[in-house]
């Protein structure tokens, strides 16, 4: 069976907007993703090195903001949902398969290195910028937060600025 076509982007955007609106109406907060990585990381360090986290500044600030078990966090549950939802979508559209995707002009090795470095930069940047494309840019636009829109402009502006230098990876 062939993969199904993707949804019309305007329709998908409209649905995504309604999901975000419902999230704000019900919970008073927006969507997110990178925050879950932070929670899982913090939980891992806390269980491996319990004495260490009590003293390091970052973990003290974290537990001040999020008391209790770092895994009992709204975004962790939301991201578990994202995994389930994306899996269901892949299932109904015949897109479930293990695959390392890379441009025909590039190699698997380069793609692996690119994904690792890209993820590293995004993970770091999202901590510094207090949110990623979901938490800062999209949710920030919905509530018209100045900081969210500045982060959004910087993400997309930065990507356009650097795109030329990495064009060989994609085209």
């Amino acid at each position: 069976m062939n993969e199904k076509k993707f949804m019309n982007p305007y329709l998908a955007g409209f649905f995504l907007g309604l999901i975000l609106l419902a999230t704000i109406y019900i919970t008073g907060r927006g969507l997110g993703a990178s925050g879950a990585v932070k929670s899982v990381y913090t939980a891992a360090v806390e269980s491996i090195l319990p004495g260490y986290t009590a003293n390091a500044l970052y973990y003290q600030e974290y537990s001040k903001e999020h008391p209790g078990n770092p895994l009992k966090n709204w975004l962790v549950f939301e991201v578990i949902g994202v995994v389930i939802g994306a899996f269901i979508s892949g299932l109904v559209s015949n897109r479930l398969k293990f695959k390392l995707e890379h441009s025909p002009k590039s190699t698997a090795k380069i793609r692996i290195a690119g994904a690792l470095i890209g993820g590293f930069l995004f993970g770091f940047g999202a901590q510094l910028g207090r949110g990623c494309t979901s938490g800062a840019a999209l949710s920030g636009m919905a509530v018209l937060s100045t900081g969210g829109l500045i982060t959004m402009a910087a993400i997309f502006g930065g990507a356009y600025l650097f795109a030329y230098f990495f064009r060989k990876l994609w085209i």
Partner: protein
Amino acid sequence: MGPLVPEVIGNELNFIVALFIGIAFGFILEQAGFSTSKKLVGLFYGYDFTVLRVFFTAGITAMIGVIALGHWGLLDISLVYINPTFLWSALAGGFIMGLGFVIGGFCPGTSVCAAAIGKIDAMIFVAGSFLGVMLFAEGYPLFEKLYLSESWGNVRVFESLGMSQSLFAFLLVLVAVGAFWATTFIEKKVNGSFNPEFKPVRIYYGLTAVAVIAALLMFALPDRKQKLLDMVNSGEYSGTENVKMMTPDELAFRIMDDDKNIQIFDFRSKKDFDSLSLPKSRNYTLENLFEKDADKFLSLKNKKNIFIADDEQNAGKAAVLAVKLGFTDIYLLQGGLDRFKKDIIYFKNPGNAVTQREKDEYRFRTKASVVIPEMISVYKEKQKSAGENKPKRIVGGC
């Protein structure tokens, strides 16, 4: 009134809500094609603007929804998480994320979604993002200064730009519609032909019209709050006939009787409120009447809601506003707190009572002038240990 958390939906149930919201979020991201890095970076090389279309449509849909819900009094925006603004870390973090985007081909949300359907590059991206978080966490003392500098608080962009919310929303919709049009032509130039799905056909003229009309409606929406505030502040209003009066003696009696059916709303400044306020009274501003706290208390049935200020006139403004907002059982304290202080709290028997009624009244006031100040100081002590109990802005973000 939203947000429904924590009153209608408890903090535990909120986690289950998060799971279902995540399922919907992940499903739509995958259906939109965000599970492939080729489609995501297309935006930066001009061959596929799906990301821009989905992202901008979602953003303006949610934005218009938030403004509309706020206008109809269904959502208290003062409780919603507004991403705080820290100028330099937002810019630096954003640029680093942009670099990560063109190198890695994903962002955190889309990488999780792509990993879920088996994309190995996405799994590696997720692993990389753990390392990025690790660098930030372990090197935090180095980044702390940048992270916390130039803090502007929970500001909203139209405030920063000094324009009205409606104007900004309208302009943003125009920018989005313009971008939708322009990118179709960029795609044509890069790919050699129109994407058959996005040929400028009639349906897109229709969509554009809908978006522009929605944007124009923004001008009609958020004026309600300002209009009502202007109206009561100008003093040119009607509706006082729905406000009842309560005498200082009746209020004093109800306070001493510990009447559970009265709620006192004090519209003086915080400073005056802190120096002397009646037991169990709540300090409000006119703006507070639009918020969830007011909705929660003023909607309660079988309560007498007594509005007080120094004089009747100032409390009257608030009372009229509350009536206009649809609340009932609003009472004004006759003569305001000034007269309540004179007649009750600092009452001195002039000793010239003639009729029995006057004698009774003076006897009651003498007793009240002892009991009520006591109740005030007891309540104040209790409050001090209990702390502030108004609802706080929800903590969100990544």
